[in-house]
């Protein structure tokens, strides 16, 4: 089934996720080549539209597009400098008039990619909207889980026990990942204080990290935004760390095959007080590496069908010709 947008996990569903994971495998292989560049999206234009600062995600998408030979343009509008006089719609329509095949959108407000997909004929890829969704992060996380577990002799998502620790309420990463893991048959536990949970639970939850740790295959730490502490959502960073940080003591109790993940950037000393480099289960660096392959997979999946000359962008059958 052809997918036009990747705004949220619901746009692709289970089949789409599995297809994208397989495609990410191919892209990771491309990335390991001496010349990690293929002509698959030559002539296509990808517009990175970042209304919120995010150097890492923007560079990851930019690199992904360039490895597929797409042309890129980037509009980075820090939220502080957004021209209040121009509506979102005007901005999008102006850029589309320059010829855009896909918008990669990061915005501090939930839902912006959905609105833009109504106004534009281009494909829309959500690079993070408000507290809502961050589907390419979920995809790279799933890919990391699958490949790292395969390397440790384990397979599949069915029955996998994933604990997501921290600020679930304000986390687009948690929303996308919870939804995606649920679709694939994993069981997700949200771990954190009630003040950091959504008003209605999106998964079973607990505020007892120590009790939960014994039954997890994956510990996924979320970034704890320091402004949450300032706004009295938790009493103090110190107390948060005591209850919810991955400390050396807690890390020591993790089983050998338990993976530790984090979407970055880490707040050392807040949600993680152990040095991840000393954790055998840490796959945090692999997450970053896999981000490029996962985003290549998404761009190729959405734009790779037909090139601007009307021929097939993927040389040969399927993606073998990449």
């Amino acid at each position, binding site marked *: 089934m052809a997918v036009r947008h990747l705004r949220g996990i619901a746009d692709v569903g289970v089949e789409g996720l599995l297809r994208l994971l397989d495609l990410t495998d191919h892209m990771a292989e491309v990335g390991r080549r001496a010349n990690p560049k293929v002509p698959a999206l030559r002539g296509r234009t990808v517009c990175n539209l970042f209304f919120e600062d995010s150097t890492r995600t923007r560079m990851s998408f930019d690199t992904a597009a360039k490895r597929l030979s797409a042309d890129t343009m980037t509009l980075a509008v820090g939220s502080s400098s957004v021209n209040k006089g121009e509506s979102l719609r005007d901005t999008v329509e102006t850029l589309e008039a320059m010829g855009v095949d896909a918008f990669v959108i990061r915005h501090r407000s939930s839902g912006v990619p959905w609105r833009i997909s109504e106004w534009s004929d281009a494909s829309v890829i959500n690079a993070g909207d408000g507290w*809502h969704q961050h589907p390419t992060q979920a995809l790279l996380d799933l890919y990391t889980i699958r490949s790292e577990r395969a390397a440790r002799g384990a397979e599949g998502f069915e029955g996998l026990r994933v604990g997501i620790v921290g600020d679930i309420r304000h986390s687009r990463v948690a929303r996308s990942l919870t939804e995606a893991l649920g679709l694939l048959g994993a069981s997700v536990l949200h771990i954190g204080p009630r003040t950091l949970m959504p008003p209605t639970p999106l998964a079973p939850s607990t505020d007892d990290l120590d009790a939960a740790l014994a039954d997890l295959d994956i510990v996924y730490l979320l970034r704890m935004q320091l402004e949450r502490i300032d706004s009295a959502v938790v009493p103090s960073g110190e107390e948060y760390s005591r209850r919810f940080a991955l400390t050396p003591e807690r890390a020591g109790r993790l089983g050998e095959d338990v993976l530790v993940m984090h979407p970055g950037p880490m707040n050392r000393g807040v949600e993680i007080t152990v040095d991840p480099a000393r954790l055998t289960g840490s796959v945090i660096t692999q997450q970053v590496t896999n981000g490029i392959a996962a985003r290549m997979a998404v761009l190729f999946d959405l734009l790779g069908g037909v090139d601007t000359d009307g021929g097939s962008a993927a040389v040969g059958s399927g993606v073998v010709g990449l």
Partner: protein
Amino acid sequence: MSRGSQGVGDVLLTGGTVIDIGGERRIDVRIADGVVAEIGERLDAEVGEVIDVTGLVVAPGFVDLHTHLREPGMTEAETIETGSRAAALGGYTAVVAMPNTDPTQDCVSVVDFVRAEGRRAGLCDVHPSASITVGRAGERLVPFAELAAAGVRIFTDDGSGVQNDGLMRRALEYAGELGLTLAQHCEVSSLTAGAVMHEGECCSHLGLPGWPALAEELMVHRDIELVRLTGSPVHLLHLSTARSVELVRAAKADGLPVTAEATPHHISLTDERLRGFDPVFKVNPPLRTMRDVEEVRLGLIDGTIDAIATDHAPHPGHAKERPLDSAPPGMLGLETAFGVARAHLDLPLRELIALLSWRPAAIAGLHHLHGRPVEVGEPANLTVIDPAINWTVDPNALASRSTNTPYQDVPLTGRARHTFLHGEAVVRDGVATR
């Protein structure tokens, strides 16, 4: 006011059914000199103009307790004239203009301006309300007596609630003594900081800050207790939650002078509409759950809620094209209120018209002019409704300067065909005459 000599400008409405506070009857109605001049079966059709209203309902004009006309200050969204036209087309002969204009309707000069502009437009009676506090800042009381002398009867900081308990108490004591009614937008702001939509399952999925039902209910409760303490009346604006309805029901059972209104959108739409992130569905208080919708409907049906009020809140298109969290809340309502209420309230037509006409007229202190029985000598502020006409809402066909209706492409049944303001046909065959 004189509207021509006897006989000239006379209009005879023949074949219709009159529905008013007195009941329902098949009689003709002659309008002359701004009043109902004659009623009876088969009146003489030789005099003046005859309008065949067979199959239609002749009723007292509707009264909206809650209209944002946006003038002065936000005329890109609406003007007193365009809003009045929308009102007349919706069957309204009077609207209470909300005071959150720029400058605020908190002094006689601004209130006089709004009233005068309403008169100049001449499409419906525009009755300005005034704020409770200066600039709606929640700090100092407005000059109630001076504003009352200028004709203001309803005072409200609508857009926000009066947060300070002590200030609200003093406002009730002071204004109540003058025979004035304070109307409250019930929202405890410390519970709704940054809120975009109803707090519940939907907002949890959508990653949007929630507006908990409790924020409304706490202030409903506080104001009911302040009414109990002071004896002064309070009108509760746009109730949206099941528990609010319950609180008002109990207050009325205690005999307290509390009245309440509900909007057409809170009895027809739920928070699920926000799933597409379209700000046209963003409103304050927010769309709630199906259970709330059902309880608000029940409240209107059993009389707990006294009136349907539109909270007509125009916003320019570009404002509703902002991201959901920064787009302004509000929806159009005047032209769709009757059709929407009809579709969602299982009530006889007369009861529905009561909620739109004489009950709100009484709350607004306009019952000497509007919502009157259709009897000889009464002011001819009337609407003629086609209760059976099917139509589809086209935002661009509405008279409002803005297009932010949540009912785009929704089929409705029933609509005003003609509206008479002080005897003058301001709407004829669904078209405004001025």
